[in-house]
């Protein structure tokens, strides 16, 4: 199978063809990705220089890409353009009119505040860097009460469930609800650290809570394995199908 795909003249021709060499999903581009993938997976055999090289390439590329993306996606459209404004454009037969953006120079006032962050490198003036950090922390902290209310109160309210099979509550639903309520109580009892758990009853509920937590962690570990395996399967697909063309593409 390998010989039928990789060693065909068409495969090699496509690899070295100058047409559309760097287009999305072009073979030269995929080949670079495949070599780097193999480099990273080579660690599974043992630590080696090829792995180190690919790791450094990855870190360097990610850092460089992030800088470009931050300028292009954040600083330019969200700060520079609003500050300097954009002239409007009249309608043409091909394009509709585009309204301009009025310059708002007040955005420039953010620059010195943000620049204070660089004082973190100075021993003498390091305290200045805490000003922008303080603004960010203050903004974040101010929202937390509301955030807690929106996120967790519905969760707590949801624990009040009917455990008696009456009306719309079927016996199966009542049993299910009972399991939820008992689990909730015994797991919470495990986290009672304010006083020593001398009561036999509390000790037992606490132990049960710990066991149920372990069941939960086991389930989470299972789903973790599912994610990791699917990521590996996708890499195998990339190497075998997209790169080596050993099967039908999606």
């Amino acid at each position, binding site marked *: *199978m390998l010989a039928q795909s990789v060693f065909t003249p068409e495969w090699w021709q496509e690899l070295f063809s100058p047409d559309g060499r760097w287009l*999305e999903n072009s073979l030269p581009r995929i080949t670079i990705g495949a070599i780097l993938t193999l480099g990273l997976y080579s660690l*599974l*055999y043992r630590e080696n220089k090829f792995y180190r090289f690919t790791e450094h390439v990855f870190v360097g590329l990610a850092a460089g*890409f*992030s800088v470009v*993306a*931050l300028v*292009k*996606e*954040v600083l330019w*459209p*969200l700060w520079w*353009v*609003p500050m300097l404004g954009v002239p409007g*454009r009249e309608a043409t037969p091909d*394009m*509709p009119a*585009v*309204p301009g*953006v009025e310059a708002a120079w007040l955005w420039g006032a953010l620059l010195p505040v943000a620049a204070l962050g660089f004082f973190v490198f100075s021993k003498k003036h390091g305290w200045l860097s805490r000003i922008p950090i303080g603004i960010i922390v203050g*903004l*974040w902290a101010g*929202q937390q009460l*509301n*955030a*807690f209310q*929106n*996120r967790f109160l*519905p*969760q707590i*309210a*949801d624990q009040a469930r009917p455990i008696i099979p009456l009306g719309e509550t079927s016996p199966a639903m009542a049993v299910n609800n009972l399991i939820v309520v008992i689990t909730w109580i015994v797991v919470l009892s495990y986290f009672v650290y304010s006083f020593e758990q001398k009561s036999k009853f509390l000790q037992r509920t606490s132990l049960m809570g710990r066991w149920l937590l372990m069941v*939960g962690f086991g*389930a*989470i570990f299972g*789903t*973790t*394995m*599912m*994610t*990791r*395996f*699917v*990521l*590996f*399967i*996708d*890499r*195998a*697909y990339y190497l*075998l*199908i997209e790169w080596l063309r*050993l*099967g039908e593409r*999606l």
Partner: protein
Amino acid sequence: MSQDLQTEKQKATFWETMHAVDRRWLYLILFVVVSILVTNPITVPNVEDPAAEALYDYLSGLEEGDFVYIENDWTNSTRGESRGQFEALMRLLMRKKVRFCISTLGDPQIPDIIRPILRQMAKEPGNNNYEEGKDYVIAGYFPNLEAHVSGLVNNIRDTVKEKRVGGRSIIDTPVFEGINDLSDAKCVVVITASGTINLWYERIRAKTKLGLMCTAVMSGENIPYYVSGQLVGIAIGAKGAFDFESLLEKEWPEEENPGYKNFTSGRRYMSPLFFALMLLIFAVVMGNVAMYQLKRTGRHG
């Protein structure tokens, strides 16, 4: 007596080997199993998860011209799970002629990853030749998670107005016609491989419905939000993608709709995943039985 001792010694040697097998052999077996099934996938049957079905049913019930806001927070690092989910969601929205805006909080690479995927998908039969700037917009990357989500909830137009497509602000495109507040959106769908969904739980203030497509590892902490009604539905991992694909197939069968593409990575990755998990279970069982046998014969440790 001597023969019994010899047999016991041989048994112990086998279990010793099982207990101390070089993990690289396991990697090799895994690679072989996965390779066979990736190149020769087996079509497996599917029973849709009710939580994924709930999300699909809600979105499938939308009408032409409705608006959905999509928070798309995955990159190539979780492509195996997230891309299948993303593609299935896009197919559903395009076929229903639902307008959508996509932004990201996770990684600045994301707009460049999804743009070619969307262009390619728009050409598929049934996807109504969706065009950027007319049927959908990509609002791009926003760096401050808290500020961005709060901004969207408080004033969606003001938050995204600086992002442009074809020289004009995205809020001047037909996609944002009649959308003055997040409550005008029928739903926010978060496709994520990280904790960005938590910001939506905290800040959405019931302005609209919230749906989630997440990686399998995130399911444990997010299913309670579906049970409590904070999520309209949740699609989990590659299985969630497969669920969406199966439901697309039920609504638009490929046999009756020539050229339609319902199945992608969700179905394709199910059989390798099944056998990989079987291998894992086998290895864990063998390792534990080996440990037990070695302890029994006093050879462990």
